[in-house]
């Protein structure tokens, strides 16, 4: 299973954190520090895999953002790399040419999209169409809701 996913910038600024097992805030902070220093120190054109404690770390850089995924030991590294890529594709589809700023300003959306794709540290739905459809569907719900909101605000 996957244990956590971190997105951070080249400067080491954390942009998204997803933990699939419960962990104390202290442990989280330590892991974030370890991951950013370890991954940012890697030379370009190194391989995308690292061993860290009993986990495998799979990381990849997209533009200014590093995606760093930790999986348990028996998991398939190459496919983990594609988990990252599929998530990037989903973000890209949603935001249209996604950039770091989209994730900063719409962090809650980035979490929702991730939740449609992964769950409990396992892949939930690999079909891009299905994930996109359900994200769009929930956006539709949101739009309905918000129109209702404005009415409330207008008349309330």
């Amino acid at each position: 299973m996957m244990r956590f996913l971190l997105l951070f910038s080249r400067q080491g600024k954390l942009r998204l954190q997803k933990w699939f097992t419960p962990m104390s805030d202290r442990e989280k902070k330590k892991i974030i520090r370890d991951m950013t220093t370890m991954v940012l120190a890697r030379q370009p054109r190194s391989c995308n895999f690292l061993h860290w404690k009993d986990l495998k770390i799979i990381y990849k850089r997209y533009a200014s953002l590093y995606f760093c995924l930790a999986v348990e030991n028996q998991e398939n590294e190459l496919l983990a790399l594609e988990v990252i890529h599929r998530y990037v594709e989903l973000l890209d589809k949603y935001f249209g040419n996604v950039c770091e700023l989209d994730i900063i300003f719409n962090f809650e959306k980035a979490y929702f999209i991730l939740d449609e794709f992964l769950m409990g540290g396992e892949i939930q739905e690999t079909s891009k169409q299905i994930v996109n459809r359900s994200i769009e569907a929930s956006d539709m719900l949101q739009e309905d809701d918000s129109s209702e909101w404005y009415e409330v605000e207008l008349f309330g």
Partner: protein
Amino acid sequence: MPAVSKGDGMRGLAVFISDIRNCKSKEAEIKRINKELANIRSKFKGDKALDGYSKKKYVCKLLFIFLLGHDIDFGHMEAVNLLSSNKYTEKQIGYLFISVLVNSNSDLIRLINNAIKNDLASRNPTFMNLALHCIANVGSREMAEAFASDIPNILVAGDTMDSVKQSAALCLLRLNRTSPDLVPMGEWTARVVHLLNDQHLGVVTAATSLITTLAQKNPDDFKTAIVLAVARLSRIVTSASIDLQDYTYYFVAAPWLSVKLFRLLQCYPPPEDGALRSRLTECLETVLNKAQEPPKSKKVQHSNAKNAVLFEAISLIIHHDSEPTLLVRACNQLGQFLQHRETNLRYLALESMCTLASSEFSHEAVKTHMETVINALKTERDVSVRQRAVDLLYAMCDRSNAKQIVAEMLSYLETADYSIREEIVLKVAILAEKYAVDYTWYVDTILNLIRIAGDYVSEEVWYRVIQIVINRDDVQGYAAKTVFEALQAPACHENLVKVGGYILGEFGNLIAGDPRSSPLVQFNLLHSKFHLCSVPTRALLLSAYIKFINLFPEVKATIQDVLRSDSQLRNSDVELQQRAVEYLRLSCIASTDILATVLEEMPPFPERESSILAKLKKKKGQSALPDIDDSRRNVNGSTEHSEITDTTNKSSPSLLKDLLATNRPRPSSFSPIMHFARTMDSTPSFTDMLSLSSAPTAGASLLVDVFSDSSTLTSVDVSEEHFPRFVCKNNGVIYENQLLQIGLKSEYRQNLGRMYIFYGNKTSTQLLSFTTSVTTNDVLKTQLNVHAKAVDTIVEGGAQVQQILNIECLSDFKDAPVLGIQFRYGGTLQNIAVKLPVMLNKFFQTTEMTSQEFFQRWKQLGAPQQEVQKIFKANHPMDTDVTKAKILGFGVALLDGVDPNPANFVGAGVIHTKNTQVGCLLRLEPNTQAQMYRLTLRTSREPVSQRLCELLSDQF
């Protein structure tokens, strides 16, 4: 701010995020955040009810602040409100906040569970998915208790939507991982297996994950999955790439599902049924064939997905370890990858080949790639790839290539990255020992290791070479000669001095015939290193000197002079001084016969399991290390075993078995002279005493254990054995071992306490450098102030010293401070840690009240979270007087005539902390027939009720 604003943009949130991004400094950021927090707090507390949108916006801001790394201690209630809303957009934010911020032991779980229950029952798939996600995210025990039995029904119900089935499967998987005992197995398990046949590949993928985890635990219950998995796989791998529509990923058919199915099959041995087996073999062959086809796309995603499936298929082939052709094909495929231009593939090929090397069918095939791997070691730019190469060389090593591989590893060691040096040293040491045909090569190799990477040679390694030399008399002369030569180097590593001192002390006589290495030359050589060495090494050298006195009477006078010098006899280090004194005395008074007996050559070490191997395993984690001992038994193992047996002498039948166990005393061997001197009358056999085969007595190990000085510092177990005894009393002995007794007396008034600690030295000698410290963890620091007065640094033999501790309780707390004690005894540093019995109930003041008052208060504290109740079995005889005494000792007033049932006990008290006072009512109902108690506590603060209940319920 980006233009994108799908759904409902929350303008206030975006503005806030912009503000934060524009902050020039950390201080400015914190200031802006505090301003926002104050604003939100006032909105939440304000009189005007907030509408859903504002609530959502503020909760989102809090979430953002939390994700920036700041603590958030409010807003949970508002999030729970959002969660319970009927509006999707609010619910979604509520769930997000809870998933990110709520840890499993939150007080809110009950409220959240309620909302989840409603959503699960709503039959609205979107709501159900949100609820299932939340359960999977939080995954706490309480949630498992509440929902573990419902989710299987959702999963297998005929009318459940596909997306909900997927969530339910993965949610169940999560609960099974965290609380397996709460997930009931039953009729649903059979139906889950049939989800492998589902039309919807997303459902199949999620179900496969669930089944794999369940099958790992109960393989027999899920055997039927094998047929279905093979059938499914076969359909996928033979499908044209477009058949699976959106489940095709860059021209690869359902890579995620394929990998999961291969993984599921790795829970089982190869199918017994012939037809099924050949169908699976076909699948595997198809995957191997596809690897040879030209790629359908140049994109790296295509090759990654394709090779992911290939590597997983190879894992299954290795797991089955039964089809030689497949294994060899797999090996050839990986061989191609070893030279691939993609670093990732080279890395994975090296890793995968490690496991192949342990199969009898493919071991030889792996060996053919040795040159490539050695080359990788020299040319790869990435240290993690080089590390895999080292692993693979280690795994493919056998008698035929050991010399070459060890030589390559040694030469790599000279330039290896510091991070992996220790591991390489261990590996070289193991290989050199395991495949040594002539032991001169072994000795040379280890000395080379020390020369090249002395700092990374752990104690296990040099202990080991000494043991082997002692156990094999054919190599002793060579070893003595070699270490003698190695010591000639002007700067040699301290580890070499240790090995040299030990070996010359034992076997220096074997080379003493040569005038170039006469006794005096040997001694002068060793002694020239003496002053550059650390204390443990010097101690070892002193022992070597006394051994010399026995071996070479002609240097006795020289050595006695050295021992007699001020720098030895008056050395500030107790251990060195004592050795010098005792050795000198021994050499003066003992007759030659006695000396010869006492200082006899070390007896052979008993055979034990490998400690170096154990260390390596510990370093790498069991799974990462191919076990070269067990797995290759069929091929080379058995034959090698007998070969070695033939070449070794009779006293050590197999060198494959390591001689040194991890947890036995180290060969500080000839040091227990002092122990010897003390116990001479009572112990008849000298050799036995010097032998390391017998477990040392506690006292002896203190003396012998000179090497362990600082290593024990970090890992001291905190003694809490007597802790519970102090819940209801204030005085007594909290700790005792053979050196030290620690007694306590304490008194408390309101929120202040004073504790007198008495340290009693049970020995007749001084305890030196005696220091104590009281530590509280980060949480406790904010709740409890503990100030310890200084204590003397020397505790005389048989004496007792006192230390005073002042304690102030700031707010209610759960943990206890730890008292750390450190001192030197007989040259050894002792570390003790004791959990101090400072508990919340110590700050009780009794409260007397009438029956009427009591019940009035009792009713006031009626909210569910204020009450804690526990029903438990009696651990002690149920004696009324004893119980009364314990309740009084706990700190509350016993109220007679309050409870209508006179057998029950009722008490009341107030906990005093600096910040608040917490009133507490308790009731204990004994049931003598069932030998049970029911304890009920009501206080205005839930953590207080919890903690008091924990403390008191252990006492009866």
